[in-house]
């Protein structure tokens, strides 16, 4: 099979991960100049939006700036996410520095993100016991939960809960000074990265207070519009994006490593969701199958990589239009999971 050729609809077997990665390898070539330009630009926009949200401007402008600041936190996070995958520049040390900087507004500790995302999520996508992101419960597990916990699970999967899920289950439990048993061990770098984002949060609060004092605005309003609301937008965006990419009636979860490995998880455990504006705003994160296939492809080449991937494996890559209706259909159908028969279930 010639994977260099863009037309592979006639192939009678699914291409292997190695074959696909080889075909996409030319796109995994980062540019330090492009990376620094995007990081500088997005950081400047985020700072400007935060300053507007914190100062004495009309309420409408404050609100608009605050919501946009949340979006820009997500954009900066995606740049940091690329750095953590060593996809941002060709320099490993520089990536670690730039990644930590880009992660600051989302208060994401870099090393813990690397552990939970690069190793657990990308290494074992949709394999229960390894991947820890939006793992569905079986009906038996759900029934065995205490009442308050069942209620929380229902909120998470109500369609309105992605932000709460991300804040509690991922950020609080696995990223921000997690207990060692939550992440599998203890490392000095975890505490250092936790301290770094805490110091940044203190600096951020101090800056908001100073901006409010300088402009004659209220400090409480400055914190609300300059930090709390953007953080709410960011956490909801993040929780939503990871939910919709790995939860869908046709996306399977596994609890058995051998079955998972035999299922071509490099293609079958995520979707290409089409929503051009959101994709552009979120630095092409919706080109998700290409990202999962090769994490070293930088975000500004993911669209080309995804197009290539779909040409190479047209029957294996699942494509959906991301719409309001699509989201709510998924929410209604995907509450619990029958691991034996590999199908999503509603609450009984």
């Amino acid at each position: 099979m010639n994977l260099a050729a863009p037309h592979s609809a006639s192939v009678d077997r699914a291409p292997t991960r190695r074959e696909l990665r080889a075909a996409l390898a030319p796109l995994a070539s980062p540019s330090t100049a492009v990376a620094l330009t995007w990081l500088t630009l997005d950081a400047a926009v985020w700072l400007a939006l935060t300053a507007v949200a914190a100062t004495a401007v009309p309420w409408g402008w404050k609100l608009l700036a605050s919501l946009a600041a949340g979006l820009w936190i997500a954009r900066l996070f995606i740049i940091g996410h690329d750095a953590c995958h060593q996809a941002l520049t060709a320099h490993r040390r520089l990536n670690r520095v730039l990644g930590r900087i880009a992660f600051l507004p989302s208060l994401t500790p870099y090393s813990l993100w690397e552990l939970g995302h690069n190793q657990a999520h990308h290494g074992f996508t949709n394999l229960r016991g390894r991947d820890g992101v939006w793992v569905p419960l079986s009906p038996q597990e759900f029934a065995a939960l205490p009442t308050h916990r069942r209620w929380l699970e229902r909120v998470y999967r109500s369609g309105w809960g992605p932000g709460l899920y991300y804040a509690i289950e991922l950020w609080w439990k696995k990223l921000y000074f997690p207990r060692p048993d939550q992440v599998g061990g203890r490392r000095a770098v975890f505490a250092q990265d936790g301290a770094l984002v805490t110091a940044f949060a203190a600096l951020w609060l101090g800056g908001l207070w100073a901006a409010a004092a300088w402009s004659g605005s209220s400090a409480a309003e400055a914190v609300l519009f300059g930090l709390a609301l953007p953080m709410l937008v960011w956490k909801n965006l993040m929780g939503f994006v990871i939910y919709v990419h790995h939860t869908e009636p046709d996306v399977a979860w596994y609890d058995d490593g051998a079955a998972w490995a035999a299922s071509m998880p490099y293609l079958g455990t995520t979707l290409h969701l089409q929503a051009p504006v959101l994709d552009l705003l979120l630095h092409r994160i919706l080109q998700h199958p290409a990202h999962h296939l090769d994490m070293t492809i930088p975000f500004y080449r993911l669209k080309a990589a995804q197009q290539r991937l779909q040409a190479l494996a047209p029957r294996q890559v699942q494509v959906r239009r991301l719409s309001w209706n699509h989201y709510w259909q998924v929410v209604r159908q995907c509450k619990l999971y029958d691991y034996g028969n590999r199908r999503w279930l509603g609450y009984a």
Partner: protein
Amino acid sequence: MSDLFDSIVSRIREDAAAGLLPGHLQTASIEPGMTLAELGVDSLGRLALLTALMDLTDQYIPDTAFTEAQTLGAIVDQAAAMARPSS
């Protein structure tokens, strides 16, 4: 030493530089006959090794590869054997 062993040593050094594996592994000699205990690799380190080996071989490797094999060289040999096409 195999290419795969050299690649995994390179990954170990990168993970050590990132703080996920003990810092001395950035520069220390890493030989095939060394056990994970001698390398100072704990449960988090085993996850790092496992994902690196899976990435390098494009092959699922069960946890048992780490309990059955005593040395890094044996683990790498086992992963290489799993990655060899059988059909």
